[in-house]
């Protein structure tokens, strides 16, 4: 394994490339694309995916804008997952679940807001009941 000496410029460029690529892995459609073209079966590619795990370290992870990619990267280490990705339904399922999960906090927040709004509607009525009874 010959260690190629790269310049700092090249290293920085490679950094950006790998940053982009690892984040692209968050896209299930892209994963399906890679699977269907057989990239996920190639051993060098699998080794590359293992090498990319360095993005999990905090000093690298802080550059990731789409953190979902890390979970996908972890799943991609498993051969079964790579095999399943060839199916378009699998990718679609992942996409749907991913989007639903993405909306989780928004949904939770809107539910809380609704609950809060309902509570506030009830509260103004309660004191008025008390007023009418006292005569």
């Amino acid at each position, binding site marked *: 394994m010959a260690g190629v000496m790269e310049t700092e410029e090249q290293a920085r460029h490679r*950094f950006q490339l790998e940053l982009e690529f690892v984040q692209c892995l968050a896209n299930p459609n*892209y994963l399906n694309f890679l699977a269907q073209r057989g990239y996920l079966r190639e051993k*060098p590619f699998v080794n590359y995916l293992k090498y990319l795990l*360095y993005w999990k370290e905090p000093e690298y992870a*802080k550059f990731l804008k*789409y953190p979902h990619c890390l979970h996908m990267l972890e799943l991609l280490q498993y051969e079964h997952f790579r095999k399943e990705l060839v199916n378009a339904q699998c990718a679609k399922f992942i996409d749907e679940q991913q989007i639903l999960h993405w909306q989780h906090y*928004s949904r939770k927040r809107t539910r809380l807001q609704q609950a809060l709004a309902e509570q506030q509607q009830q509260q103004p009525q309660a004191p008025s009941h008390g007023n009418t009874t006292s005569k």
Partner: protein
Amino acid sequence: MRKRGETVMAAAAAEKSTKEKLLSTLDDIEVLSRELIEMLALSRTQKLPQPGEDTDILELLVQRDKEFQELMQTAVEQGKVHQEMQALEKEVEKRDSDIQQLQKQLKEAEHILATAVYQAKEKLKSIEKARKGSISSEEIIKYAHRISASNAVCAPLNWVPGDPRRPYPTDLEMRSGILGNMSNMPTNGVNGHLPGDALAAGRLPDILTPQYPWQSADVSMGILPPHHGNDFGLEPPGHNKENEDDVEAMSTDSSSSSSDSD
């Protein structure tokens, strides 16, 4: 009569236990005394067939008696020695049980210590792990802001199906990055969710290339990717995750310890 006495004596010459010697001597005495009495009974009616036989028998009798007394003495001494031996054996038994007790306690202590050492090591490991993963809270908050503000981890509140925004880089974003512009990305309308994308044809002129924040790292930080040999075809260096420490602390010399209760 004499011959009988001699044969009995000859038998006693071999190594025999005190008890046997005693018994044989008693037999001799019995024989001799019977002879004497017979002789005395005979001498009433007839003369002695052999002169001096009575004195011989008497001498032998006295001799046997002396032997008997000596043997009794020896027997008494042997009895004493035997008693001492028994006392010592009891002592030995007591010491043995003491040693076994100590052994049990030692084993227990060793077990407890081994557990304690093991747990201490685990604790140290977790401390080390925690220390390694410590990040300043400010940085975490900054990061949290970044990923939330761009709607990367939480959907925008006004999102409806049909909204092109996604928790991953979209086709558009992918193509406008370095990767997208490096080689010819095969265009396939199935994967891209912007099928009628005018950008799908190729590159944008440089000034129009949108710089999405997910691509530009803060290069001035000087962080570089880990070095790797360019050949990913070979097996990556194996990280042996086996923790030999765990096995070493827990394996104690398992001798017969029947008590398993903690």
